[in-house]
């Protein structure tokens, strides 16, 4: 039996993707930074005119283009699934990670949204347990979905709460 590291248990688990709008947000952030760096390098080029500056600009732009393709795939690699007793989150391309976090272990839930995320109608939900290593963060959710997930998580967490 072959197992794909990106989608474990494809038959039994209903994986949900994150919003494709997250790709746009990530690309905007990446290219904004690239523009700033390139602008800085251009100033250097104008002042000094050495060919190394041109090489630097080319490298930065090439890197950004390459990373943009990776970003597209990385966002598609994010996925989460709600099972009866636990939340599954998978992500990562180079290092692939899957987290299984039981609702009963939840200590608190964070819903965050940066200015750019808000502009595109996205939010990030993060589930915290008592273990610092637990890694259950889901970016790129629609606000309604984020709120629903938060309410569901807290409700389920309350049902099964215990003092560790």
């Amino acid at each position, binding site marked *: *039996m072959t*197992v794909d*590291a990106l989608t*474990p*248990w494809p038959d039994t688990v209903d994986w949900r993707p994150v919003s494709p709008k997250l790709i746009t947000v990530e690309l905007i952030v990446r290219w904004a930074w690239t523009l700033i760096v390139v602008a800085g390098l251009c100033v250097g080029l104008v002042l000094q005119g050495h060919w190394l500056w041109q090489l630097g600009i080319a490298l930065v732009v090439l890197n950004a283009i390459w990373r943009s393709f990776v970003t597209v795939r990385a966002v598609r690699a994010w996925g989460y699934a709600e099972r009866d*007793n*636990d939340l599954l989150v998978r992500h990562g391309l*180079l*290092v*692939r*990670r*899957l*987290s*299984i*976090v*039981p609702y*009963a*272990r939840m200590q608190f839930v964070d819903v965050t949204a940066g200015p750019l995320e808000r502009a595109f109608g996205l939010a990030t939900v993060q589930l915290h*347990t*008592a*273990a610092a*290593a*637990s*890694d*259950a963060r889901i970016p790129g959710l629609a606000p309604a979905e984020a709120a629903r997930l938060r309410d569901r998580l807290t409700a389920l967490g309350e049902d*099964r709460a*215990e*003092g*560790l």
Partner: protein
Amino acid sequence: MTATEPPETAVAEPEPRRRLHPLSPLLHGAKSIAVIVAALSWQTLSQVGLERFAIVVAVIAVGVVLFSIVGWLSTGYQVVGRELRISDGVVWRRNRAIPLERLQAVELRRPLLAQLTGLAELRLEVIGGGKTEAPLAYLTVREAAALRERLLRLAGRTRAMEAQPTDQPDAEAPAAPALERPLMRVKNRELVVSQLLTPQAFFLPVGVAFVVLQFVLEGSWTFIGIASTVTAMAGVLLQPVRRVLQDWDFRLARDPEGRLSVRYGLLETRNQVVPLNRVQAIGATWPLLWRGQGWLHLRLDIAGYAGEPGSGDSKRSDRLLPVGEFATARALVWEVLPGVDLAGLATSPPPARARWLNPFSLRSIGVGLTPEVFVSRWGLLTREMHIVPYARLQSVRVVQGPLQRLTGLATVYADTARGRAGQAKDRDLAEAYALAAELAVRARHAREQRTD
């Protein structure tokens, strides 16, 4: 809002806020003065002369003691319902309520000065604290023991029991250490030998030879020079000595409520009480140099255990067995995690192709699932074993790095609230997912059983 208060506090009169022992400011002052003197260092002493040095220290001492007295006046504690409330702070007032169901362990600590004056410090370990929260320093030993007993009793009480307020706080005042069932005691000779068999102890003669050589070559035998060199060396090389002092006369017992009671220390005696259901994991280590004796040491992972501030060896503060033979360790593990036999923990190795990632240590890696615990072991020279009860699992993770992807392997982590996660390194990918699913299921069953 008084109508919604729990019946206990409504019936009983709210208990008065209590102060710490009146000698506490003096003891605190003495501690800070020692720190200040150490900070001023030997060099200052040689520069300003003994008299001025003494005057400076005296002035600082008076100031510190005065400050401590003000601090003492503003510090108080009281038990309200199922909370311990502590207020302290001179400039920034702080009122802290500690919900006792979150209590992980309580430690009664007696530094040398406190031993001389018959006092003790009570430390509470709660989850989420970067450092030990709410050290109550100092109380009389009797008071501290009674308060600890009371806090632990409140912490262990379930909601059903809470409905019937049977125990009066006054009736619990005399603690009952006489009923404790001793489990084991580490022989001091073994402790000393075990600390001699550490890398630091082997380097000690080298360090001493270096110092002697330096003085012989320079020919200057001043007191200051020797003192400062020794002080500088002591920090690193005398760690075995410190451990011997810390772990001196290590004793374990079960108290009448079934909690684990650990006592140790020579200059500073400590007595920890840990409810068994607060144990997150047990770690066993077989250091290379101890193998001749067949010794190992056991570590107890407790959530929220903060360890020594700044000493770097925070893992040292929660040991179960500083040194001991396998039979002792086996009995202890059985005692702490009933049904877990240290000798019967079979582990299976990762597939042979994991050799590419672990050229030397492949045979020392393994994981095993028993009905109660998840076992993982690793380490070629210093062999280690990590035992996590399913009921304590916080989350399960499967991680596959780029090299692992080439070989079709993955690592499964079993996270606990404190300490190292149990990890199944370099398993076959399909096996890793099966293992993760199995762990999640077993963790759920273990939790459901426990909440019944």
